[in-house]
């Protein structure tokens, strides 16, 4: 048997949004096997939810993910409203969709920046995050919070989008379109990004079906699924938009899908604003006194894919059972397919390509020789070898021209 080197990424590492430990078993530079340990951040939210009132659960599930913090309340609201059997008002539908799509834009920009960083393209990182900032300002204006917006409740939303706020959202959408043109140009025309991401981390259509992956990860492999269209909720059936798909299944296809989705999000927001201008202000929440016994399944398309909430009510003030399935739960498992056979430098971007949730707490990452126990690489060196590869490619590309 050949000697394999173990390279752990994590449990705390900036590649990952949640603390997770990935063990890459490498033969030279090639990843031959991957194993992972999860659960470092298991907070027992499903169990906790059983001891909270329905109103409190909204704040609880909002804290599952800091980036796509509205997708969980969105799915939970859909599930509970199914149990109650109410139809929310049109104004509420449009407001919910505006929040959902603003979140998609800021989440995709965040991912794009990080992808750039892992490739050693830090200009892209700084641009993407710079243009993400005004979106967070919009959130602050609409909801009072830059993140964890506390907008949703059973039967409606907590704050209106008044007519006076609409012009600044429109102006920002105009600006973000121009910036998206710039970012799309910078990514799509860059020969180095092509060289680093095309043919890397490929997930075939069959892999997606086997792992039941969702969101941009599935759509980049030609699996045309999107809950917003397939199981319509909020204002999505009332506006015109299209589902973006790509066929290649590699990292480049995932970048492409996310970039083009942001244009669609901007268009959805503008159409929602048109409708909000015509509708009378106020009337944003129905009065719901009690949640009857029953079962509700709610879905929402988060930036990373389908969020699924299953709520069983026994007629009391809190859920009898609340099952939550976040998109990363099914997407992360595809690493088994996308990383094996890649070089270590490519495995890092393949791991980041499904946009797994992010933790921001780098504590330790080091490479050890599995037989001698000797330390070979640390976290910064790991990122350095990825960046170095981009530099080399950039040089050789320049040499061709």
């Amino acid at each position, binding site marked *: 048997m050949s000697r394999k080197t173990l390279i752990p990424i994590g449990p705390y590492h900036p590649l990952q949004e949640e603390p997770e430990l990935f063990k890459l078993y490498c033969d030279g530079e090639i990843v031959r096997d991957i194993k992972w340990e999860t659960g470092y951040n298991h907070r027992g939210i499903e169990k906790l939810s059983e001891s909270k009132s329905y109103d409190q659960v909204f704040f609880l599930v909002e804290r599952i993910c800091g980036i796509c913090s509205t997708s969980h309340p969105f799915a939970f609201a859909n599930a509970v409203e*199914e149990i109650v*059997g109410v139809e929310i008002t049109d104004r509420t539908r449009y407001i919910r969709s505006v929040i959902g799509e603003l979140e998609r834009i800021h989440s995709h920009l965040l991912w794009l920046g990080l992808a750039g960083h892992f490739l050693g393209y830090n200009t892209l990182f700084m641009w993407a995050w710079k243009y993400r900032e005004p979106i967070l300002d919009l959130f602050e204006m609409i909801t009072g919070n830059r993140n964890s917006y506390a907008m949703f409740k059973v039967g409606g939303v907590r704050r209106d989008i008044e007519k006076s706020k609409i012009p600044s959202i429109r102006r920002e959408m105009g600006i973000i379109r121009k910036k998206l043109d710039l970012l799309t140009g910078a990514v799509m025309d860059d020969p180095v990004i092509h060289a680093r991401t095309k043919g890397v981390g490929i997930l075939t259509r069959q892999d997606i079906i086997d792992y039941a992956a969702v969101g941009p990860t599935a759509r980049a492999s030609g699996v045309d699924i999107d809950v917003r269209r*397939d*199981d319509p909720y909020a204002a999505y059936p009332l506006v015109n938009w299209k589902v973006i798909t790509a066929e290649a299944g590699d990292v480049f296809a995932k970048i492409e899908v996310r970039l083009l989705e942001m244009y669609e999000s901007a268009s959805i927001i503008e159409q929602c604003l048109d409708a909000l201008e015509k509708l009378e202000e106020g009337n944003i929440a129905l009065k719901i006194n009690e949640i009857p016994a029953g079962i509700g*399944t709610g879905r929402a398309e988060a930036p990373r894919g389908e969020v699924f909430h*299953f709520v069983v009510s026994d007629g009391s003030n809190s859920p009898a059972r609340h099952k939550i399935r976040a998109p990363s739960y*099914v997407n992360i*498992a595809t690493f088994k397919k996308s990383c094996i056979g890649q070089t270590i430098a490519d495995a890092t971007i393949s791991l980041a390509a499904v946009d797994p949730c992010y933790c921001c707490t780098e504590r330790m990452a080091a490479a050890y020789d599995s037989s001698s126990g000797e330390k070979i690489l640390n976290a910064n060196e790991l990122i350095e070898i990825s960046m170095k590869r981009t530099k080399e490619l950039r040089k050789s590309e320049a040499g061709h021209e």
Partner: protein
Amino acid sequence: MDTEAAINKLTGKFSDEIAGVTLRKGKRAIVTIRPTSLITLSEYLFKSEGFRFIIASAMHTRLGFEIYYHFSLDADGIILSLHVILDKEKPHIESLSNMFSASNWIEREMHELFGIDFLHHPNQEKLLSEGNWAEGVYPYRKEFK
């Protein structure tokens, strides 16, 4: 295909395996089946009808352990949940992970949190606690405080 047509097709083909059907508003259906029929019905939904496995939700109730296996037919927006009721004392059921990888993690999670055994699972190790939790203590059971 609407939800009713999908259910009629299923009940027509597997009338002996199905104990009850609940159709709900908004393209949702719950089909209660015998635990021994899970593989047959899942195979039919996944391989022949093109359903996608979303997730499974286990519950600890007065009846024992219940699992809802949620499947989605994305082309028509249908969610079909296969519902099984397992033994109170020694809950066990056949694993779906040899059919598709999507159920691998959730079965390990249910094994760890509820103590349900998944027969022929390729690797029924703990998913979340990695040895940091006592053996034989199941935090998602009702008696756990």
